[in-house]
């Protein structure tokens, strides 16, 4: 589904991604772990199409097509979703209005009619229930004044509504309390099927007890330096990153 080939990306002439290779097939769950500042969020943003970053070398293929030149919205229409590490506050636009807009703009791009209001309401109710989100919450301005955990839960609500093929969850667990973590992880698992894929970025092994990865990758200084199964996450939790860095030299 997703193939990242020798991807190099820079911001203001500073190279952040230094040759990333990553292949994600339908049905798989991948996890990326790595120290602060190693480039995890940058990789997510580049896959989602943020143009602050220049791709200087390599390519990103989605369903076997090069998407390097696609706008973020075009990637979203193809089924790529990014749950932000730091969701942006948009005062004056309610969660409901926002998600309706997102869904209908995506349908428009595909030449489909807007979703009938009743169907939309049903979908909103279903997904809000799944993530145990109070309906009143959805009338609030998008992310404005949301607690850290509420923001993350709201990201997953949007994911549930949009039903992407590839969901990238950038530190969705940070800020969530233990109960919320279970609810969110349960939501992600319910949405998971053999045709879609998830890439989770996290610092903590705990999340991976709930969303169990098929592969774990370690990203250090812009490169994936080690990949393994879910036991790698345990090892990292225990020993930190130094031993890998040592292995590298």
């Amino acid at each position, binding site marked *: 589904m997703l193939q990242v080939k020798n991807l190099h990306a820079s911001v203001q002439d500073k190279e952040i991604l230094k040759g990333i290779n990553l292949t994600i097939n339908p049905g798989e769950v991948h996890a990326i772990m790595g120290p602060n500042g190693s480039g995890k969020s940058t990789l997510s*943003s580049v896959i*989602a*199409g*943020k*143009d*602050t970053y220049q791709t200087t070398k390599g390519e990103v293929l989605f369903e076997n097509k090069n998407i390097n030149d696609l*706008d*973020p*919205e075009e*990637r*979203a*229409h193809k089924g790529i*979703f*990014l749950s*932000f590490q730091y*969701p*942006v506050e*948009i*005062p*004056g*636009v*309610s969660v409901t*209005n*926002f*998600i*309706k*807009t*997102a*869904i*209908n*703009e*995506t349908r428009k*791009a595909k030449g489909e009619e807007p979703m009938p209001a009743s169907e939309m309401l049903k979908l909103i109710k279903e997904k809000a229930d799944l993530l145990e989100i109070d309906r009143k919450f959805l009338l609030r*301005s998008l992310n404005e004044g949301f607690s850290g955990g509420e923001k993350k839960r709201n990201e997953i609500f*949007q994911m549930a509504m*949009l039903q992407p093929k590839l969901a990238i969850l950038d530190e969705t667990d940070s800020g969530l309390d233990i109960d919320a973590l279970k609810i969110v992880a349960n939501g992600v698992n319910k949405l998971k099927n053999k045709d879609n894929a998830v890439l989770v970025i996290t610092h903590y092994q705990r999340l991976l007890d709930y969303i169990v990865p098929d592969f774990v990758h370690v990203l250090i200084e812009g490169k994936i330096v080690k990949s393994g199964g879910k036991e790698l996450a345990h090892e990292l939790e225990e020993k930190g990153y130094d031993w890998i860095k040592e292995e590298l030299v």
Partner: protein
Amino acid sequence: MSLKDKLVSAYFAFEDNLEGNSPIHKMRNKAMKRFEEKGFPTKKEEAWKYTSLNSVIKHDYSIFPTREHNVELKDVRKFFLHDIDTFKIVFVDGIYSSFLSETTHDNMDICLLSAALSKPKYSAVIEAYFNKIAQKDSITSLNTAFAKEGAYIYIPRNKEVEKPIEIINFATGNESALMMQPRNLIVVGENAHVQIIERHQSLTENPVFTNSVTEIFAEKRAFVDYYKVQNDKPNASLLDSTFINQDTESNCAVHTFSLGGKLTRNNLHFYQTGNHCESTLKGISILNNKQHVDHHTLVKHQAPHCVSHQDYKGLYGGASTGVFNGKVFVEKQAQKINAYQQNDNILIDDKATINAKPQLEIFADDVKCSHGCTIGQFDEDALFYLRSRGIGKKEAQALLMYAFANTVLESVKIPELKRRINKLLATKIGVSIGFNV
């Protein structure tokens, strides 16, 4: 003949019909003299540096419409907030329309300035309030000289007016070019509450020039919630001067929504004369083409323990121009006041301009004053966030503009008005997506 000359000679004719040597007549004469000396303001004056009236005063306006014109209710109904849930004082080409108005009420005065100026029953109020806080600048003076018609609202103490009052001035276009000078006087008694919506609405493509003056007096603990809806036709220009005097513990808010019109100048002055009063000045300007909106605000803190809060947002597209000049003046005795001013602007197109200037003059030492001014483009992170959800760039920008402007709407206390403005904003910005707030 220049408009000024025309006004000067029109005044002689107008004056002939006024009764002899009344104090008001003297007031008019003096005011006319001031206008004659100063003429219309030009860019040479500091306060008019960025706003030229040349394109407005070049037309040959009728100053007094020759006959009464009627408009059909069905043609103007959409400009009313409610059919029944508001009081309405409606003027058509400067003349009161009893047919369109709705002023049935008990124990308060929602009527006409013409009546207030001529009937003895009102003379005490007129004497105490009329032209007491209006400035002596040329355009206000011009209005004072010709002041003939407008809303006269007197809310006695402890009265909470049960529904909003709409003051609407229509221009029909039956004159090839029309100048109007409405004059409003609003007195809100001790502990009385009122909500007012003011609108100037041209129904024509013909040039319309309105020079409006409003004086508002908020007595002790009075509550005044005032809205100006400026969404006029492309050939209509407005000079709006509003002066507000606040007594102890009164609370006054003015929201100005500037979306339409050719040239709009808002002079909004607050004078805090009693302790513990609160003033709110908020505005949204969304302009395109060659529109021009100039906000000149003044908050004069003359008493201690007061608060003033200003929040103006501007979105400038096309080759439009915005001006924001916010002056806060804190007199020596006005200790422990808190004056806040914020002005945020987004330039959408390269050809649009904004001239923003805060002006703080503080003579008291124990005060809190803050001001901020931003001029920017769109927040890239916010744009990316929206686009990553499948919302196209143009729509995402529109959504952000809408969100940017929307914060001023928060404090609108009339739900139906909020809904209407919300829709106007969405339309003006070109957000096609159905918003409901």
